[in-house]
Structures are given as C-alpha cells and as structure tokens.
C-alpha cells in the first residue's frame, strides 16, 4: 500500500512558558492510500488536534506532515474535512451547500460549460449516493441531524478530495442513525477510493469503521498503540457482537482507561458504602 499521509515527529504546543500545553509529542505515523484509520483516546490526547494539523487548520510547532511526499502548508482542496456540527451554510439549499466549493473555484477560474456540466453531474451523483435527492431544495435546518451530516459529507466529497478528515462526525447523532451512517461512509470509502482519517470517542465505531485503530494517550498527547482490525473488509452490523470484535473492544477500552489514569477506586467506594450503612444504622 502506498503511503498517502506521513506524519513525522509531529509536535504541537499551545501557549508558551509555564502555561503551555503539549498537545502532540513526537507523533510518527504513516497512513496508506485508501486506508480507513480511526483515532480514539481519552480527552486531551490530541486526536482532534492531529486531525486539524493534517487539515492545515492548525500548524505544527515541530515535525512535518506530508501528503504524497510533499509537506503541507495550510488547508488544501486535496484534504476535505467534515466537522461534528454547525458547519453547513443555513442560507443555502442542500444542493447549493454541496456545490459550495464550485462557487469558490468559479470566482477564480474561467470555467468552460463542460466543467459546469461535469460539476452538476457530480453533485447529482452525490445527492443520489447520500440519499438526498428528495431534499435537494430544502434548507439545512429543515433536516434531521443525520441528513445534515450526509450533506456535509457530500459537500466535502464534491471536489474529489484524496483525503477525507472526519472529526467526530456522528458524535451528535442517535444510535440508529449512526449505524446507517457507518455503512454509508464505508460504502463511500470503497466507491470514492478516499483515504479516511476518522476521529471518534466511540471505540465500537472506531473498530467497525477502521482498518487500524490508533489509540492516543494524553499529557502529553501522543500515539500510544495501534490495533489492526481483523474483520472482513465487507462489514456487517452483526460483527459487532462477534467474539473477536468484543475482545478487541475490551482491549482498547482498557488501554484507554489506563492511559487516562482513570480507574475506579473500589476500595474507596466500599469504604464510603460502609460509612453510609453505619450512619443509617445509627439513625
């Protein structure tokens, strides 16, 4: 597999002096072409920061991120991003939201009528792929959260980006809608041959979608461990209940808890319960 994104000794520090926070420290990772990589980790582990650095919305304080061997500087149309919410333009219809990036290019370049036609065809194809054809003329706030995220994904895909960066895109959706979106995004990844980097706090989602699950650890934010997912390429919701899946889920959850330094203090819990019982007895 060709390397699409290479992250080399990436470091990111917010602020300076004593109050500085090391969001990323010495992150090294290669992401392959058309790979689906998911990132999980306790809050403050820098997973979102890393994603934003790949997207060019943040700049590294040390190290490099390369796409196809060339260092990146700022955002670029080769790397599209899907956010958790509030990223659609409420004043534009679904179709115009999806075609927004065309609006930008149209202002800068002379487009031939063939280009315009091709873009319209592309927009129609995406509407179809995302199941949005019947709401093409609706405004985003007339749609459910799940439908809004479909629009956001279609909008990101319009200029045929090589990389799709997703920052907890389904975090605000209900469980049933998420399942539908999971199969949809897997379908997109296969059909569009897009390299997908996906940040989530949901381990089950990370395993179901990812070919590799990267666990990051906080303070300082760093890559802790990488779990290759051993599931058939063609995913199926029932796999979530398979022995292998559950075992991997348990292993990753445990690892995240360890890195976060959060463990339930059973001794303390027991002591407190005993105290409460004693007080009850005295009354």
């Amino acid at each position, binding site marked *: 597999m060709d390397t699409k994104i290479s992250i080399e000794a990436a470091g990111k520090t917010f602020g300076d002096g004593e109050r500085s926070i090391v969001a990323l420290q010495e992150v090294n990772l290669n992401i392959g072409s058309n790979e689906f990589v998911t990132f999980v980790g306790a809050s403050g582990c820098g997973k979102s920061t890393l994603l934003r650095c790949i997207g*060019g919305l943040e700049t590294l304080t040390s190290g490099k991120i390369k796409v196809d061997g060339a260092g990146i500087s700022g955002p670029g149309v080769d790397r*599209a991003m899907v956010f958790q919410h509030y*990223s659609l333009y*409420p004043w534009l219809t679904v179709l115009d939201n999806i075609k927004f990036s065309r609006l930008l290019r149209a202002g800068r370049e002379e487009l031939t009528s063939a280009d315009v036609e091709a873009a319209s065809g592309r927009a129609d194809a995406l509407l179809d792929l995302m199941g949005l054809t019947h709401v093409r003329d609706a405004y985003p706030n007339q749609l459910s959260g799940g439908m809004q995220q479909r629009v956001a994904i279609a909008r990101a895909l319009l*200029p045929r980006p090589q990389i799709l*960066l997703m920052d907890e895109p389904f975090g605000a959706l209900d469980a049933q809608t998420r399942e539908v979106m999971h199969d949809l995004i897997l379908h997109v990844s296969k059909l569009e041959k897009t390299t997908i980097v996906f940040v989530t706090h949901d381990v089950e989602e990370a395993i179901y979608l990812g070919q590799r699950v990267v666990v990051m650890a906080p303070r300082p934010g760093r890559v802790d461990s990488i779990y290759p997912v051993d599931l058939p390429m063609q995913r199926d919701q029932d796999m979530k209940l398979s022995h292998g899946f559950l075992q991997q889920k348990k292993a990753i959850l445990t690892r995240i808890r360890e890195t976060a330094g959060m463990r339930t203090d059973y001794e303390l819990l027991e002591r407190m319960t005993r105290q409460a019982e004693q007080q009850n007895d005295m009354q």
Partner: protein
Amino acid sequence: MSSKQKPNLPFHRQLSAGWRNIWVVRGHLSRRTYLLFALAGMLLPLTAWWWLSGSGLMDKVFMPGPMDVLSRVYTWFKDDNLLHDIWISTYRVVAGFALSALLAIPLGLMIGTYRPVQALLEPLTDFIRYMPAVAFIPLVMLWVGIDEGSKIAIIFIGTFFQMVLMVAEDVRRVPITQIEAAQTMGATRGEIVSLVIVQSAKPALLDTLRITMGWAWTYLVVAELVAANSGLGYSILKAQRFMQTDKIFAGIILIGLIGLAIDQLFRWLHRKNFPWLYKK
C-alpha cells in the same frame, strides 16, 4: 375508545384548566389567545388613561384625554404643518442612522474578523460609547453649527458606537466551523469574508439595525434641542412652554407609532430576505 372521549367537564372547570395550562414556563399559546392578550395589553392602558382623564381626579391641563389628543393631532395637521414635522424628524433620524450604519457595518465587520483591528478599535469604542451623547451637544454646535448637520450628528453619535460593537459581536457569533469548512474547501480570505461571514451574519445584522433604529428615535428629541424650529421633538419641547400637554401626548404617541411602523418594516424585511430561518 377512551382516548377519543373528551372529559365532560363543566365549562368553568375547562376554563380554569386552560388558564393553568397557559402559565407553563416557556409554554405554548395559541395564536388566538396571543392576540387576545396583546389586545388587552394595548387596550387596558388606553381605557385607564381614558377613565383617569375623564374622572376629574386630575386637572385637564396635566392629563388630557384621548379625544383631546386626537383633536390636537387634527389641528396640528390642519394648521401647524404636522406632515412637515413628521417628514423632517424622519429625515433626521434616517440620515443619522444611515450614516451610522454605513460606517459601523464595515468597521464592525473588520473588528469581528481581524484581531489586530479589534485590539486597535474595540477598547476605544467601548470607552467612547460610555460618554453621554447629550454632552456632545455644545461641541457639536461649535463644530458643525446649528443647521441640519448638527441634528444628524447627534443622532449619529448616539447610535454609531453602540452599533459598531453590536455588529462586531454579530460577526464574531458566526460559527467557527462554518469558516473552517470554507478554508478546507480552498476559500481565500476575501471569499471567507464575503461568502461566509457576511452571509452568515446578515440576519443578526438586520436585527442590530432594527434595534439601533429604535435608539436613533430616542435621540431625536435630544437632537432637536439644538436650535431646531421644526420636527416632532421640537414640537414636544415647544408645547411644554405653552402648557399644551395634549400636543406633548400627541408628539410622543406619533413618535411611538412611526417607530413601531419602522420596526415592523424591518421584521418584514427579515422574513422576506431570510426565508430559511422561517421554514421548519
């Protein structure tokens, strides 16, 4: 079967249940009930006024009745050129307001978009806006003179600084993800400002204009203190000298009505221009 049956409560019980229902915190009110309450809110003070002026408890000189005020409006219209007063006052308010908006919108946009502009101008604006506009009258008279310019200047001073800060705040409220999404789609800085920030802030900006328009009207009377010889505010002040309380009432109510009409115009523009906010 039971779900379709209506509880057969006597009318007064139904009424009291309905009465309790409308007092739910942030509850719902049917359009009819809303209109009923709105009408009551308008009519109650009017009847109270009518009753008070007719009761003889207060001297007619201090408390003219609604009919006195109406007949004053009529004679003002017939003999005292009411329409000219309305026209000149509206002109002053709109001119001062428009000038203010013309400068405040681009300036607020810059403050809300670029941090250096914010650092340069926002503390200064914050400072100036606490200076009372009225206190500038002597200066304005010295600098601008006593013709139309000075009245417009007072209204400008009264609204401009507030407006700049409100516009900046509207612009800052544009969700950062809307801006970042455009960045990842390859938008230039200019495109982000014109195609995202301005478009996204537009409804809030129109609301800011609507609210500051109200303030512009409140500064009218102050502005017409400055050597005016026409206008609604001027007429109110002159009427005080001649103890024409009915004319004071008439002037105040007229300003209120014009303000209400302009406010409704802004709301209509809002619905007309931003249909996506009203479709659910």
